[in-house]
């Protein structure tokens, strides 16, 4: 094999290597560096909050109950909260996406459970069993949500009334509008003490929370 041929094939290998390297760099790039996402609105009494109001770290999630990634991250969030519940609080805000027809019904069910003080229990049930209702019709999904409400021993008459009330949908839409206003374009979107973060794994998430707890986050 002469030098020209070796150079030719080496050139090809280099091009393939450059393509793969470029992709890896693009994937590892933190979106924060170019992010134009604004700061979430301050936490108010109407928010769904788990944890103490005096907690040093506030994690705000904009989520969609039918989003598979949100379901995965819900386990991360629960684990993080369990490990740092005295110093961290979690806030969930609705951001139902149009491609998920059961996202708003699920959000309604969570809010209706919240009226009876069981928002986070319903939150966990919805995410843990997402595959059971995600691809069902809205009527079937609502029947499944009724089953969760029964499991949580909710007052079913009030649950059904709250689920369909105009104030429930108004709250969901208001949170979604607020998310749109600050430029959210995907779920889940997380903010730690007002700053957007994009962890890919539980470990990355934990590092971010630990840094915020120790006050070393930028």
């Amino acid at each position, binding site marked *: 094999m002469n030098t*020209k*041929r070796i150079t*030719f*094939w080496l050139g*090809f290998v280099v*091009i*393939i290597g450059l*393509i*793969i390297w*470029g*992709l*890896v760099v*693009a*994937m590892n790039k933190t979106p924060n560096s170019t992010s134009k996402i604004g700061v979430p609105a301050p936490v108010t009494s109407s928010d769904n909050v788990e944890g103490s109001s005096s907690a040093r770290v506030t994690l705000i999630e904009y989520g*969609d109950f039918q*989003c*598979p*990634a*949100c379901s*995965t*991250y819900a386990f991360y969030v629960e684990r993080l909260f369990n490990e740092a519940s005295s110093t961290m609080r979690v806030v969930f805000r609705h951001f139902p*996406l*149009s*491609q*998920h027809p059961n996202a708003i019904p699920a959000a309604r069910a969570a809010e209706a459970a919240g009226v009876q003080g069981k928002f986070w229990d319903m939150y966990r049930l919805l995410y843990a069993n997402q595959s059971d209702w995600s691809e069902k019709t809205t009527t079937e999904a609502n029947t499944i949500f009724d089953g969760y409400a029964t499991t949580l021993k909710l007052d079913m008459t009030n649950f059904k009334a709250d689920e369909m009330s105009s104030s429930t949908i108004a709250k969901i839409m208001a949170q979604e509008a607020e998310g749109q206003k600050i430029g*959210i*374009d*995907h*779920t*889940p979107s997380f903010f730690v003490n007002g700053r957007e973060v994009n962890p*890919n*794994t539980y470990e990355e998430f934990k590092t971010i929370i630990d840094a915020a707890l120790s006050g070393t986050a930028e």
Partner: protein
Amino acid sequence: MKNLKRLLTRPLVALPSSLVIIILVVALVGFADATYLSAEHFRGVIPPCSVTGGCEKVLTSDFSVVFGIPVSLLGAVYYLLIAIGGLIFLESKHISKLEKHNSEILRLSLLLTIPGFLASVWFTGLQVFVIHSYCTYCLGSACVTTILLSLTVVMFRKYRRTDEEDLRFKI
């Protein structure tokens, strides 16, 4: 049927390098697209749900993996084989300057665009009729494969050995 057989089996002659380079570049675009999806799969990153569509539904569906192998990885190998076929031809013509160019290997690699296109039709159909969501990267790959098939058809029709040449060759 006989015409189809003639179209698919007849050797290619007097192939212009420019057309092969276009095929090579398009195949590399497809390779980058499929490699990106494969890397995301193996990194175990759950794609976020975007306001612009349901890519996450497509990429996390049961159809995204065949016998434990991500479809995107099969796609990456497919595009790479086509690119290698083009390179072998270009190398034989311009570097080794062989009198008889390696068009047969290129022809065989281009035949892959037929099952590649059929697979793209199948996966696009799944997105439309079964998953009811669309993944931009998957649709991009389907476009690349369609372009490759179109270029292959042009090449096979325009540059295959003629009947007279074929007869002379056999004699």
